[in-house]
């Protein structure tokens, strides 16, 4: 999911930075003191999760957990994911500095969408926790794969062949992320349900 340096055109990189900066700005305005520790924790989880890689065909996939980050960090997920991606770029050369904006957007926007859709369902108990967690993890990776395909299409590459490769490689990840998000949410709902009240 990390786009490397030197692939995308400047316009895409600029748009990625602009939208991510807006997201970070909203996050900074909305984050409350009592949410700092929780946001730092999910940022740390996101930072470490991407280091677990699963060899698949010509490439590697890794855990993303952006749906989980979205549910716990809410509007602060742009901050949490942006910081984690910056550190991954600096420490592990995942992605890069020029692609930090677009990579943040690709992973944070689905996290926000999942937060807006699944958090109300969870708080009103309209859907079982495990199901909500699985759908949240699955959907967030699905949307990230869609955004990744759209980003790669701006290089002039045909959308559908690139998207086919991205979705083929990431479908197992959608299932794994969904499963882990479901288990994590079930645990949180048992021991500290108020954590989901962003």
């Amino acid at each position, binding site marked *: 999911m990390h786009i490397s340096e030197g692939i995308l055109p400047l316009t895409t990189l600029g748009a990625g930075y602009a939208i991510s900066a807006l997201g970070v700005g909203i996050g900074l305005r909305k984050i409350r*003191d009592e949410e700092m*520790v929780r946001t730092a924790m999910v940022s*740390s989880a996101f930072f*470490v999760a991407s280091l*677990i*890689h699963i060899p698949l065909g010509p490439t590697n996939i890794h855990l993303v957990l952006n749906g989980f980050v979205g549910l716990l960090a809410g509007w602060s997920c742009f*901050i949490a994911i942006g910081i984690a991606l910056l550190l991954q770029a600096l420490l592990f050369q995942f992605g890069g500095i020029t692609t930090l904006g677009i990579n943040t957007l690709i992973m944070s926007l689905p996290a926000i969408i999942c937060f807006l859709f699944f958090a109300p369902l969870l708080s009103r108990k309209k859907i079982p926790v495990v199901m909500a967690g699985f759908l949240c993890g699955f959907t967030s990776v699905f949307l990230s794969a869609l955004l990744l395909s759209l980003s790669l299409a701006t290089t002039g590459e045909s959308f559908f062949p690139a998207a086919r490769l991205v979705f083929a490689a990431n479908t197992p990840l959608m299932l794994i992320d969904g499963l882990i998000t479901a288990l994590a949410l079930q645990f949180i709902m048992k021991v500290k349900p108020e954590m989901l009240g962003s």
Partner: protein
Amino acid sequence: MKIFFLLTVALSAMLMTPTNLSAHGIRLFCWFEAGTLHGEGYFAGGDPAKNSKVSVIDRAEKNVLAETRTSESGTFSLSLDQAIPVEVILDAGQGHRASWTWDGTTEKEKKPEHRDAEPENTLPAIAAGLTVIALLFGFLFLWKRDHAA
């Protein structure tokens, strides 16, 4: 705070299993030998970049001199004039790309600098990253508090 501690321990135990721990960035390593360019693409954890597209670009003319794909072991070989300055690009798909540049030296063949077979030790970098995250959010907390006052 107890819940955060428990969650951190649980996530750490789940995510930091040594056998699974590995970096994800892609690497490209090339060298010339007897008029042939040899190369190897691999992920930072050591897994080969299989069946990935390799393009050799003439750095002066900016045109593609040769294209091939990596083998199941992530390696490739191409007959190439060592005097031409080239950039070798490895594309593993999904935005994963690495490159290697050659300045066209002909006097002496570049000695291969074989990569380590063992996966990189990422634990110090992970610890550094987690520390920086904690510090950044600490600063953010203080900054928000000062501006709220």
